[in-house]
């Protein structure tokens, strides 16, 4: 059901430059629309806004550390596969150290 609804939206957005440029879908708040956004959004926003995710620029190792910290210190339940890899892939690619989707202007 979820997939039936979502994939046409993602497909449409991929070929809609204005929307791709904005990089956001209200459904996933501030997060960049790409494979993995749905798993990432719903896992993270169980406790906090996706806005804090969208501000980060971390290496893959640091994202893994961050998720470990969420489980060990912050009460998050462990994310099971395949979602775990999907989420780490998404975060590392779109919220890496080069900050391709940093939401605020840098001064």
């Amino acid at each position, binding site marked *: 059901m979820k997939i039936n609804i979502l994939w046409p939206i993602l497909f449409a957005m991929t070929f809609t430059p204005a929307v791709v440029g904005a990089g956001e879908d209200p459904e996933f708040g501030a997060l960049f629309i790409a494979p993995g956004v749905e798993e990432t*959004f*719903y*896992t993270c*926003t*169980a*406790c*906090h*806004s996706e*806005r*804090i995710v969208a*501000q*980060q*620029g*971390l*290496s893959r190792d*640091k994202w893994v550390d*961050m998720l470990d910290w969420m489980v060990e*210190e*912050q*009460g*998050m*339940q462990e994310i099971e596969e395949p979602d775990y890899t999907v989420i780490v892939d998404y975060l590392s690619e779109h919220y890496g*150290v080069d*900050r391709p989707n*940093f939401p*605020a202007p*840098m*001064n």
Partner: protein
Amino acid sequence: MTPKDTDAPHVGGFFADDPEAADRAFFGRVTHGDRRGFLRKAGLATMGAMVGGVIPFHRNMPAGLIPAALAQENVLMGKDGLTLLNDRPVNAETPPHLLDDAITPTARHFIRNNGIVPDDMDPAAWTLTIDGFVDTPMELTIADLRERFEVVTMALTLECGGNGRSAFDPPASGNQWTYGAVGCSEWTGVRLRDVLEAAGVQSNVIYTAHYGADYHLSGDPDKQPLSRGVPIAKAMTDNVLIAFEMNGGPLHPMNGAPLRLVVPGWPASTAQKWLTRIQLRDQVHDGAKMTGTSYRVPNRPIAPGEEVATEDFVIIERMPVKSLVTFPANGAEIGMETEVRGHAWSGDRSVDAVEVSIDFGATWQPTDLDPAVNEGAWQNWRADISFPQAGYYEVWARATDNTGEMQPHAIDWNPKGYLNNTMHRVGIRVS
């Protein structure tokens, strides 16, 4: 985010026909469903967003029950012009040009929350407990504080330890503050020292532990979102207040109403909001965000990106010398002559000089710098500037404190992105 008047009727109508079916469709909720399955669905997040927080007892909510607090409040209600960094927990900073006032208005004081704000901030029902290694543990209402201790009003600078984090490269995790997680409002309250002396500080006390009424983001009632403290010597200084008024009015709910600590010149995380308890300890506090790498920096200079063992991190105490240009605004168009002005501060110290440059740091000119109105307040400075010709300029400001420490050009990089006190630059077009 603004209140959406249309949400409740829409959802209500949707729920009226067949509540359980609507609940399944709208929130994905099934009564007595498997919790893991439930948490993975959009429904809990949607409902949490709609009521403005986590729902710790969501498992007990019957399917078909519409949350009573469906109307989401505006998280920046009562604030003016702040940049929202995060809406759960709420974190917002003030653009530098909106910090131009000598005393920061309540509406322009930044917000740094670690958890979910308390539901009940009734000043009449609030109590503060003083316990731990004291001769006489106390439980005090705000009326007790006013009655038993001298009430003082002071202008006090609060700055988030992570202010300026956004400029770190490699990036450091956390809210990406630029310049505006700082403010200097007038706080009215009683001295922490007076209250601790009344309780009787025992000779083995070395540290305080502060507790607030906010909730952990996970909804776990056994977790604290933030519980920090300070060495007892800092707690006993004259300008650390237990405050119940901000700029002569009530505290803003996001700034810790109805009672908070104000610890000027130290990371503002030590200035516990929604303050309920201060415990005196015979060891360094180990509460939330006291340990690990939180509010800590390496014990030695390191290269950007360098890995540092957790045991090599030390707790941040005073905040470093820093200044802001609050006029003109970055990007302003301005005439051939203008006043430039702003504030300067240095934790537990005073600022001796602020200089400005309009030629990318090649030459510097002095500014007129006021003394602090009281210890712990920032100092205001101004200078009249003439530009040699039309064009693009940057106004740079650098402060030097009374120990000779000056703001640096480059960031002293640290893994968690604290203490960025590099010079503030404001670009202007002159014609």
